[in-house]
């Protein structure tokens, strides 16, 4: 067994998990909303990309560009019409609503696309690889990882360098005082969910190109995303990437020992981190 290869593959797999998790982390960081439908929204994004590809015949990456504004609008509307109404001091109503949303999304997808598993074809890219001597890495996993880093760099730029990002952080700290600054917290939340859905679309693109998907796989993706966010520390995007990498490496190492251990090894790594650092690796200094 080639340990370096196993670890390298795990790190790259972590990029996919970080993509799953980044949108979740963003929304939780700004409005303390745990979106249980996040995984299903990723699957929905994958179907949307598949639909665009099969109708127009264009490249999946271009299809994702078309899907992004649609998903942004969907997220914006979802927050405005549904989620803003249930946000408050009680954390239970948003959990119930997003749990219900998860079931609705799964069943709408089942109705619309059947239970058959699907895949977004990416042509030669699916099997392309680069030989680095010590290890050979797939182009697709490399692209996934690079996209995860690009997403986190962009989100951090928005968060820490723009007026919108200041409004995000201020609203997250104290929505009442933020409104005294002329900020509409409800509008800020809608913007945040819209941006999270753009990230969801990117995650959906790689989910759809790398593996088969069907309407029911969302919740399993949600668990990896949660684990990545919690390992990294709530609200830290680089921490989320680290969390994704830890789960990815644990899974590939587990699988290298015995294929039955793949999923379990990821969950065990999560529990070990929770035991040692209950607040995650990079927790925010306050809250």
């Amino acid at each position, binding site marked *: 067994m080639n340990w370096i290869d196993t670890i390298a593959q795990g790190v790259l797999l972590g990029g996919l998990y970080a993509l799953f998790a980044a949108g979740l982390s963003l929304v939780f960081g700004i409005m303390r909303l745990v979106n249980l439908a996040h995984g299903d929204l990723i699957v929905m994004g994958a179907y949307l990309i598949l639909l665009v590809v099969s109708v127009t015949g264009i490249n999946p990456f271009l299809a994702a560009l078309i899907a992004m504004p649609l998903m942004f609008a969907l997220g914006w509307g979802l927050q405005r019409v549904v989620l803003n109404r249930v946000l408050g001091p009680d954390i239970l109503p948003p959990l119930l609503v997003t749990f219900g949303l998860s079931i609705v999304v799964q069943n709408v997808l089942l109705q619309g696309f059947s239970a058959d598993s699907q895949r977004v074809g990416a042509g030669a890219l699916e099997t392309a690889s680069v030989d680095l001597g010590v290890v050979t890495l797939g182009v697709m996993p490399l692209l996934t990882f690079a996209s995860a880093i690009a997403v986190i760099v962009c989100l951090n730029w928005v968060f820490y360098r723009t*007026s919108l990002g200041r409004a995000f952080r*201020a609203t997250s*700290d104290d929505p009442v*005082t933020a*409104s*005294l600054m002329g*900020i*509409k917290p409800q509008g800020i939340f809608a913007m945040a969910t819209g941006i999270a859905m753009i990230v969801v679309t990117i995650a959906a693109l790689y989910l759809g190109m790398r593996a088969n998907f069907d309407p029911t796989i969302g919740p399993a993706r949600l668990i990896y995303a949660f684990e990545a966010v919690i390992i990294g520390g709530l609200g830290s995007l680089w921490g989320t990437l680290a969390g994704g990498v830890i789960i990815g490496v644990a899974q590939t190492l587990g699988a290298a020992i015995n294929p039955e251990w793949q999923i379990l090894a990821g969950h065990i790594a999560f529990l070990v981190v929770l035991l040692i650092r209950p607040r995650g690796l990079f927790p925010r200094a306050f809250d």
Partner: protein
Amino acid sequence: MTLLETRALTARYGDFQALFGVDIALQAGQTVAIIGANGAGKTTLMRSIAGVLRNAPEQVLFEGRSVGALPADEITALGIAMVPEGRRLFPSLSVEENLLIGAYGRKVQGHWGLEAVYGLFPILRERRLNPGTALSGGQQQMVAIGRALMSNPRVLLCDEISLGLAPVVIRDIYAALPRIKEAGASVVLVEQDIGQAMKVSDHVYCMMEGRVTLSGSPASLSRAAIHDAYFGAHA
């Protein structure tokens, strides 16, 4: 000209009524002080004007317009800014970001911008990259005032800006008041320090248990009358 006015303003938190028909008026260019003991309703009055608490539209008038029912972000956009009790700086923003966010909702040109605020409180320029909450109490209060000024308000509401600060720091902060007024803001001050309130204001309202019990220009009010209005006692 009456810039800001409340008419028979009532406010309640659930079943608890905090204000019972409060009438105050702020003339353009003037400073009004609201004094009273803890629980008199001073902060509730400020929160009602600022739109944090909603009221019937005609209970708050700004430039003759009924604004009592507007949310806080729209009140800010009209030109009423508040320095909230306890300063309420944003812990995840630096000093400079706290100031910048003050200009988020109202983009009118005016005297106040980053440079003008640093001119008013020079210490903030040195501390501008620190987290807002890493500063001393007095410096945090300067940030809170600067943040409110960044929207170039017509009316500045200051809720207990001297609370918990050393006398020398309070003096520094009040020294900024004339320049704030020169730049075009009229001021409503909530103050527990009666002496300070009398010194800087053109008109004083004394509140007790949700009502205005005394009002007038500082010169026209006797110590004994204020004492009675403040404590409700007839000594």
